[in-house]
Structure formats: C-alpha cells, structure tokens
C-alpha cells in the first residue's frame, strides 16, 4: 500500500474509526496507514510521497492540538482534524495553527474525501515547489565565490562596465563570469536569473544609478 504515489496518515485511538476510515479511503482508491497514538505516528518513518494527516483531537497519549503544535515547526503534511464534539475555540486554534479543516464525527464521505484530495493536492504542490527550490540551491552551490559576487550585481541591473568597476576587474573578465553564472544556473534569460535570485532570497543589492 505504501508504494503508492500518495499516503493518508490516520491517528485515532478508536480501532473502529481507524478501520472504517481506512476502508472508506481504500474504496476511494486512496492508500492509508493508521496509528493508535501520536507516539506511533511520530515514530513511523514517513515515505517521501504527498501525504495528509487525519488527526483525532482526543488521543490517549497527547491532545491532537498539542501534537499539531509539537510538529508545527518541522515539515508535516497538511492536517485535517477529526473530533467527536467540535467546539469553536479548539477549531479556531487548530485552523490558526495551520490545520486545513475540522471534521465533526460522524462526517459524510464526500466531505472527508474532498478534504483529503485537497490536502494531498496541497502537499503535492508544496513538494513540487520544494523540489524546484532544492534544485536551485544545488545550482547556486556550484558557483565559485567570484561568481556568487557577480550574481547579485547582475540581477541588480548594473551595466557590465559598472559591475566590473565595482569588483575591480576588467569588463571582459566580468562577461566570462556572467556567462558561467547563466550556464550553471540554467537561466534562459536575465529575467529568468532575476526570478531565481528572488526564490533564493538573494537581494538585488545595487542600483545601476548608485
């Protein structure tokens, strides 16, 4: 089951609810794995696929909201809370802390499956973005120290002459560095390089008019 391209993680202390949720997800061709406690969930080595977490608010070892806070800092899949008796303060707390939604038992299959699909899509999108960023970071790592100095000057829109003067090198040398940066970063155009610098949080540090 875990070899699929997605995974729904379930944490609920009631085996009847775990069983039924897994069955419903299976009938909707969704893979899932279920845990009885927050501890089991934390210990489980999560596969590297888009995922979402169906989390019971009332767990035996830890309150679901506390678990959310505990895993809040690191990466975690989007959370859909499930509760036997939804009350407004805890729903608000959960949503504010980043939960996708709050389901009150018993819930309809449509409601649940819509949310699960939305959560998986959100996680998939986040993963694509993360992968893109990882690739960019790798490319940036391949730059030489000099090339890393050239990059912010170029994306600031300085003329070659201005950038060369700023670094105290010849214009020809600067042009060679600039071509290497474009190639290593796999940028098609200056505009492309500017967008990449934005993703990498590299500030455009100089104005051409400075």
């Amino acid at each position, binding site marked *: 089951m875990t070899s699929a391209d997605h995974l729904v993680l379930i944490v609920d202390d009631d085996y*009847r*609810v775990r069983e*039924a949720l897994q069955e419903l997800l*299976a*009938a*909707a061709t969704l893979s899932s794995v279920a845990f009885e406690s927050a501890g089991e969930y934390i210990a489980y080595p999560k596969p590297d696929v888009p995922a979402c977490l169906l989390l019971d608010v009332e767990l035996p070892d830890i309150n679901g909201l506390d678990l959310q806070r505990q895993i809040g800092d690191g990466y975690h899949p989007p959370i859909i809370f499930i509760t036997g*008796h939804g009350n407004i303060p805890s729903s608000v707390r959960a949503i504010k802390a980043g939960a996708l939604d709050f389901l009150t038992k*018993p*819930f309809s299959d449509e409601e649940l499956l819509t949310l699960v699909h939305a959560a998986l899509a959100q996680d998939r999108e986040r993963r694509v973005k993360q992968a893109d960023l990882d690739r960019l970071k790798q490319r940036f790592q391949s730059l030489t120290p000099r090339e890393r100095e050239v990059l912010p000057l170029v994306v600031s829109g300085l003329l070659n002459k201005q950038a060369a003067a700023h670094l105290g090198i010849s214009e020809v040398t600067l042009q060679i560095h600039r071509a290497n940066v474009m190639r290593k970063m796999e940028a098609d155009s200056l505009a492309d390089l500017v967008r990449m610098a934005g993703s990498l949080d590299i500030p455009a540090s100089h104005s051409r008019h400075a």
Partner: protein
Amino acid sequence: MMSDDRSITDLTKYGIPGIDKVPFGIHVCHFYRVREDLVDALVPYFAAGLSNNENCVWVTPFSTDEAAAALGRLQVGLDAMLDNGQMQIFDAKTWHATTSGMDENAAVQFWLHEEEKALSKGYQGLRSAVDTSFLYADDWDTLMDYEGAVSDAIRDRRILMLCSYDAQKCQATSVLEAVRTHQHALDRRDLNWEIDSLIREEALRTMRARLEHATQLATVAELSAAIAHEINQPLAAVVANASACLRWLSAAPPNLERARLTAERMVRDANSASEVVNGVRALFKQSTLATTPLNLNEVIEEVRQLMLDEVSEGNVSIETDLERDLPRTLADRVQIQQVIVNLVRNGIEAMEATTHVPKLLSIRSRREGIHYVRVEVCDRASGLQDPENAFKPFFTTKKAGMGMGLAICRSIIEAHRGRLWATQNEGWGATFCFTLPILSSGLQ
C-alpha cells in the same frame, strides 16, 4: 451509629397540596391557624406516606379517634394499617406528658431508633407529624434546642418530620426562631400550601447539593458529553463503513467481499452504540426490583461456580471467607449476582499484569452492625489511584470496555438501599465493598 447516603437518593411524594416530591431527611415547621389547616395538610401528607409504604407517626392535637376518622376518609384500609402499626396515632397531650422528661438528645435518638425499626421492617422510611402546641408554652427554649438537633440528626436519614405550630399562639420572634431551627417552613397560601419562598431557594439548593453528593455522578453536562462521545465513535464508524460499502458495491466490477466485510462491521459498531444506550438506561433506570429473601453466601458460591473458567484462564485463585449464619437480605438475585460477577471480573482483569505476587482474589462476607451485611472483593492488582473515580460513568482502565460496569453496580446497590465503594489496600490492590440491609428478623 450508621450513616450513609442511600436515604437521599430518591424522592418521596410529600402529599401536601401544592408541594410535589421531597427528599428524605427534611424537617419542616408548619404553621396552622384553624383546625381545618391541620386536617387539609396532614391527612394527604400521611396518605402519601402510607401509599409509599412508609411507617407513619401522627402526634395530633385532636383525639386519636377524630384523627383516625379524618384520615380514614381519604385512606382505604386504614384500620389494617393501624392494627399492624404502619400508622400510629397519639394524642399530643399524652405524648408530651410521656416525653417531657426526655432531654433533647434522648428525644432525637428516639426518632432515629424509630427509623431503624421502620427500615428493618421493610418500610421505605419514617414519616411523622408532631403537634407542638402542648409543649412550647412550657419551655420554648428546650423545644427550639430539640428542633435544631432534629434538623441536624435526620439530614441523612430516611425520615420526614413535620412539626405543627399554632400560628395564633406564636409571636413574630418565635415564628422566626421556629423557621430557623427547621430546614423549611410550610405556610398556607390561599388553598395551597407553600414552602416559604425565602427558604425554598435554599431548600432547592441544599436538595440539589445533596442529590449530587449522594449519587456521586458526574454533572449532567460532563455526563452528556461523555455519552455523546461514546455514541458518536461507533456511529462515525458505521457512517464511514456504509459509505465504503456503497462504493465497493458500485465499483465495476462490484467488490462483494469488501462490501460484506464493511456491512459486518456496521452491524458490530451499531450494536456497540446501542450497548452504550442500554448501559445509560440501566444506569438511570428506576425499575421495580424482583426482590426475594437472599443469602449472599449462596450468591457468592453461585458466582464462583459461574466463573470457574474465567478464573482458571486468568491463572487466578479465589478464596472465600464467608460468615456462617449470615443474615439474609431482601434483594433481586439476578442483579446482585450481576454486581458480584462484575466485581470478580474486574478483579481478574486488573490482575492480568500482576506478576510479583500470586494472583489471589478474596471474597468475604460479614455482618455489618445490626442492620447490614457486607461483602468485600479484594484483589492484588496495582490498585486504584482515586477509588471514587472508578465509579464515574465511562471511566475505564481497560482496552476494551465501556467504563459503565461499576457505575451500574453502584446504582443497583443503591436501589437496594445499600452502598458500594472501593478502597486502596495497605499492601497490594484494591477492595470493593458493598452493604445491603438485613431482612427484618420476622421474615428470616
């Protein structure tokens, strides 16, 4: 002296027009102006008591014949009740003459003793009305001391006491004083009687507080949240399984195997929801008990036989220490069996994790004072952190279990006018004890 909570768990019809049900243990002063006031209030008051099988004592300013005649107009079969002592009528003058030598403690003890006698005869309680008009003129202060002592003494007993005061003869200060030494005051408003409104608020408050204390139940809000949760869990599973089942059926081709599996789970989970509902109903049910004279030693032996398999499966040994010639009690055999089975089973399950000492469950029966028999079930498990918690509905330490067992056991024992509680043992484990009233000697 025994004292327990059973007396206040139920209400009894007060009978006086305009007043509904009251808890036992209340002490009311009653102001009357004319003779009709007394008849109008006290005749239905005693009729309600007699129909609830209470022992009744009327100390009346009328002659006993007049009082009997007035009561007889409302109460069918009064003569037989006068003969067998369920209804006793004394005239106030003679009564006060014979009791005037008593100090207040002796007088209070007299009523408590009457209640014990009444209960041992199988009555629901003791209901009295005493006319004070022959007393207060002589010694008002002593009367007030006595009244105050009565209020304190009967609070937790199955006694209703109503003291009549002639309002014409009372000064304003003595009315106030009388009200203060009683828990409630009863006065006439038009045709109906009313518990004095100022005092009524307090009466309701104390009644509520005492009911809460007596039943040891969680508050209604807590309880309903717990019940909702317990029912919602299996219902959520049923709904999700039903959705899954429909999906398996409408798949192409239909997956009948999985559809069948989910349908079976629906049956199982719906049943577990209905078990919760039944458990809740059993907890609150005020059913009539099928009571018979019962030897608890026999019931304990039966349970032991019934549970031989469970006992050997759990590697537990049971020892019994049963008092010979244990007096019989009047109880519902099946229900008491159920209670003992529950306690024994809890003990066996609690000792699953016991390894450091032999798994031993001891059952003891003893006479407790002159009115009760007591049964103890003692285990050698890890014990109870808060013994009272164990009786809260839905409290459980088990993986599978609803946590209703002990709450239901307690409501059964209390319905039998006994008590059920738990204590932590000195060494290992916990002891669950219950008491039941002894059947009166005439019926043994």
